[in-house]
């Protein structure tokens, strides 16, 4: 029923459980969209690791566009470093609220929207409450 979609979502958090929990929640909303997650440091401490971000990225087909969601600022800086290291890939970082924007993103990505559309919808199309 879903159109083929070419945007994968990557969730980068300071806490592994948070990233993985987000993935689990959003994957349920559409099992066909590629959703990846990484979080925490090797030693289980709170933080983000570019090695883990890269490892997640390497799981995604290199032709697939990637929209990255992050929890707080330093995760974004690390995501930007990985983005710069992979200029050959189409990676975009979203400033949308990670869970709420991510939910919109999985829906629109599932409808076959482009990376730019998914990013815009995640940042603007999010609504909560009434």
């Amino acid at each position, binding site marked *: 029923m879903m159109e083929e979609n070419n945007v994968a979502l990557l969730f980068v958090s300071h806490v592994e459980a948070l990233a993985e929990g987000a993935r689990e929640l959003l994957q349920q909303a559409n099992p066909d969209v590629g959703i990846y997650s990484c979080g925490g440091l090797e030693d289980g401490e709170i*933080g983000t690791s570019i090695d883990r971000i890269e490892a997640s990225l390497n799981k995604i087909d290199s032709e697939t566009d990637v929209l990255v969601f992050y929890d*707080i*600022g*330093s995760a974004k800086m690390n995501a930007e470093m990985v983005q710069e290291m992979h200029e050959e890939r189409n990676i975009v970082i979203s400033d949308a609220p990670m869970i709420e924007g991510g939910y919109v993103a999985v829906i629109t990505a599932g409808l076959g929207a482009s990376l730019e559309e998914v990013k815009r919808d995640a940042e603007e199309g999010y609504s909560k409450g009434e």
Partner: protein
Amino acid sequence: MNVEQAKQWLRQTSARLSEHKDELSTLDHALGDGDHGVNMHRGFQAVVEGLDEWEDLSLSSLMQKVGSTLVSKVGGAAGPLYGTAFMRMGAAWKGIEQVNGSAWSEGLSKAVEGIAQRGKTSTGDGTLLDVWSPVAEAFTEGEPSWDNIESAAYKGMEATEEMVVKKGRGALLGEQSVGHIDPGAVSSYYLFQELANTMKAGEQ
């Protein structure tokens, strides 16, 4: 500074940061999440472990390695910031075996540029940049005055106490961030103080 002095500098910085781990975390407890000491300790431990393996590297490559190690290991905002700074110094020092007056100036101003880009920040935002930037300016074309450099770092660090933090976690505190020294500024001060110590020891 040659590659051996650079290694000495890094070793001394690592020891210094380990000593002050709790102090840095306590400072970060007031403005952030209380992990800056642990983060810097983790990062520089990994650098020191790397030094033994990176035996035959040029000064430039060494700086690059230090930078990427810090990015990988620090875990907090300080990781990409310090990491970018070292990588930019490495890039500026391509083909240079001995950093002298103008190379220092060039390397540090590239580092400052890198931090400003990475952190989307500028001086006065109450971050480590408020140490790095005056330090970069204290390097002139001539041979460095290490006392000047150390005091530029010190003054830069102290100045963050009166600043409203504009970047990083401390920014959420707004006016309430005034009255606290920025932890990243303090770790940067230690870094440059150990640089001065190392270089002054070499001069004797």
